[in-house]
């Protein structure tokens, strides 16, 4: 039953959930991927002088209790959590199970309500609704309370690698015996402050983004949530479940180089990938494909490309999915771990939307067409502000 027992790192991936600009659930996301259909929005859901495409979730989000219903990131997270739990065949937790919750985010961690702060500056005594919303918006706490999860919890704010880091932390909890099941991944909403911030850094594109492309101009922001349900082999065996997908390895390492830019040689990403491969007990040539971070910024794609070219041979297929979702920040690692599971499960990866021409400064290139995949292992990478890098190895074991 538990085929992953021989691999000391492995925990089961019992279910996945995804909501993003590519689709409100896994099946619609796969449909968009299969048809290479992307849907950037030309208008923003808030007023701003910045004009750029974004990737938005148009679907109706779940209604949550009043105290937390104004937190869009939490509603996005719960939408993906419910989909992942349904696949894991977990309806609800009784309170006796040891369930951990580890969620990455960026926007939901900050008191960044512009109307509140504007009123504070002008009047000095604004309504405090935005502050109460913020205090209720801690994603791990919110998800844990909504699910009745009585295990460890952590909200990770490692910027764009938060979702991947959250999955790695949750796996370490399971391996330590601290919980039997963990809800892990990331969630983030589109927000005017983040938009202005990335604009100020000069890393945004006025066109739909083109990861790894010669003419890439920068990133597009997106929103969404990507969640995996992790389960210990022993707990799955008690439920008589063989999920067929494993989190086989995780690695994280920092550059210690710069507040916003990646190390030019990808020092931390190199270490993170090698750690993840080592934990999975695999060599680079066993990796069938890599879901790259691929933000479509000049610096990120160049550094990431260097690392991939250094570690892997040219046969590895690269999948760059931010052309479908935009950069969903704290959700990105969660979403892309889910996409990696889907690639292994379905046996194909989508065309890398936006990629047309090989870049001169990048030795590797993502796939231009939908590509068949035949392999047991795949990798997903994340790079972030602050020089954080992380990677997960996922195994198809059925």
């Amino acid at each position: 039953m538990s085929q992953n027992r021989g691999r000391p790192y492995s925990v089961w991936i019992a279910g996945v959930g995804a909501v993003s600009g590519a689709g409100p659930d896994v099946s619609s996301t796969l449909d968009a991927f299969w048809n290479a259909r992307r849907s950037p929005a030309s208008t923003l859901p808030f007023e701003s002088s910045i004009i750029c495409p974004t990737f938005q979730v148009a679907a109706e989000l779940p209604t949550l209790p009043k105290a937390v219903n104004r937190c869009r990131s939490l509603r996005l997270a719960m939408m993906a959590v419910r989909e992942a739990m349904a696949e894991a065949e977990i309806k609800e937790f009784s309170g006796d199970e040891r369930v951990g919750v580890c969620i990455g985010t960026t926007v939901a961690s900050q008191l960044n309500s512009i109307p509140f702060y504007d009123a504070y500056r002008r009047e000095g005594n604004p309504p405090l609704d935005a502050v109460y919303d913020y205090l209720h918006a801690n994603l791990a706490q919110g998800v844990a309370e909504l699910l009745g999860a009585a295990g460890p919890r952590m909200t990770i704010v490692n910027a764009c690698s938060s979702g991947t880091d959250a999955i790695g932390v949750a796996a370490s909890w399971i391996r330590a015996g601290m919980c039997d099941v963990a809800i892990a991944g990331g969630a983030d909403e589109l927000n005017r402050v983040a938009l202005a911030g990335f604009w100020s850094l000069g890393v945004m594109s006025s066109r739909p983004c083109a990861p790894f492309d010669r003419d890439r101009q920068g990133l597009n922001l997106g929103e969404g949530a990507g969640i995996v349900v992790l389960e210990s082999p022993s707990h799955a065996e008690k439920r008589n479940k063989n999920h067929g997908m494993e989190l086989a390895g995780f690695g994280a390492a920092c550059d210690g180089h710069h507040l916003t830019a990646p190390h030019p040689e990808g020092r931390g990403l190199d270490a993170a990938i090698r750690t993840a491969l080592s934990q999975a007990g695999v060599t680079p040539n066993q990796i069938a494909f890599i879901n790259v971070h691929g933000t479509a910024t000049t610096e990120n794609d160049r550094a990431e490309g260097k690392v991939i070219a250094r570690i892997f041979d040219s046969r590895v297929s690269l999948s760059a999915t931010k052309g479908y979702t935009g950069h969903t920040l704290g959700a990105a690692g969660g979403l892309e771990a889910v996409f990696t599971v889907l690639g292994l499960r379905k046996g194909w990866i989508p065309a890398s939307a936006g990629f047309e021409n090989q870049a001169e400064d990048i030795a590797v290139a993502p796939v231009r067409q939908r590509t068949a995949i035949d392999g047991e292992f795949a990798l997903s990478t994340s790079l972030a502000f602050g020089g954080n890098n992380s990677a997960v190895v996922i195994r198809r074991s059925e």
Partner: protein
Amino acid sequence: MKSEIGNLLPPASVLGVGAVTPLGRDLQAIGEQLAEPAAATPAILRVSDDFLPDPAIGGRMRRADRFARMAAVAALDSWAAAKDACANVPKQRVGLIVASGFGPHCRGFRFLDGLLDCGDSDALPTDFSHSVHGAAAAYITELLELRGPSLSTTDFEIGFEQAVLLAQCWLDQRACDRVIVGAVEEIGEVLIHCASRMLGGERKFVPGEGAVFMTLGPADAAGLARLEAIAQPPEVDLMVLDVPANPPMATERPTIAARITTTFSPYFGHSPSSSAFQLLGGFLSLRAGRPLGRLVATASPGHLAAVDKVATFKPSCDLRAASLLMTKA
């Protein structure tokens, strides 16, 4: 019913401690002040900027704000204090976990100032890049040339306890040989305004700021003390109450056995990360061999006897691993 998740891992060994607090940055001097009755508590307990400059940092943090500076000096002090125990540890084997509730919100509001004054497309990039939670960790990893995993976390209740628990996990699983774990909070004008309106009149709540970091090693490393996050404190010599009110309300008195119960809230104030400061007081009590802080209760005479086992306790928090246990090495 609390789960026992916090009791599954071996304790970590505390190799070094660093802190910057409203009482200063020198641990000896902080301990001496904690042995004296707290001065009349001001409305806010801030860290003086006099404690923040550091020759080791110099101009490398010239763009940084107080949040990142407080975190950096405390982390660097904890690393320096653990110097002998870390000399031969490769930097890729050193992890970092920075916990905070509110994060660098003052810098965030500065970015909003720019956005409101200059427009969305003309706000300052430096303010944005410093407004994210991970900015402090980025400075620490750069200054200490760390190459291992680095995490920033946010939680309004048990962030530091969960960070310690994860550090134990990383050490036990050999993901790291050393973990620098700490908490940092900055109190800005907007938060003070909000706190006074949200909590005003209900209780004597004093916001406090600062940073506390500890360099941890595996249980078998010789250190200053043993530290673990736990579900429920066992019987201890000294119970440190992590409470916002001063004095604690009747309902916040612990029901768990301890010879002495104290709190450090009158000295350090309260914040989402205040358990780190309560633990600092506990650590200094262990080091002094006697209880420090504001006495809350004593269960038996002779309370000046040696203190070998200290626990922090959040009476109002019914969550897992919401306590920290520190024992003398």
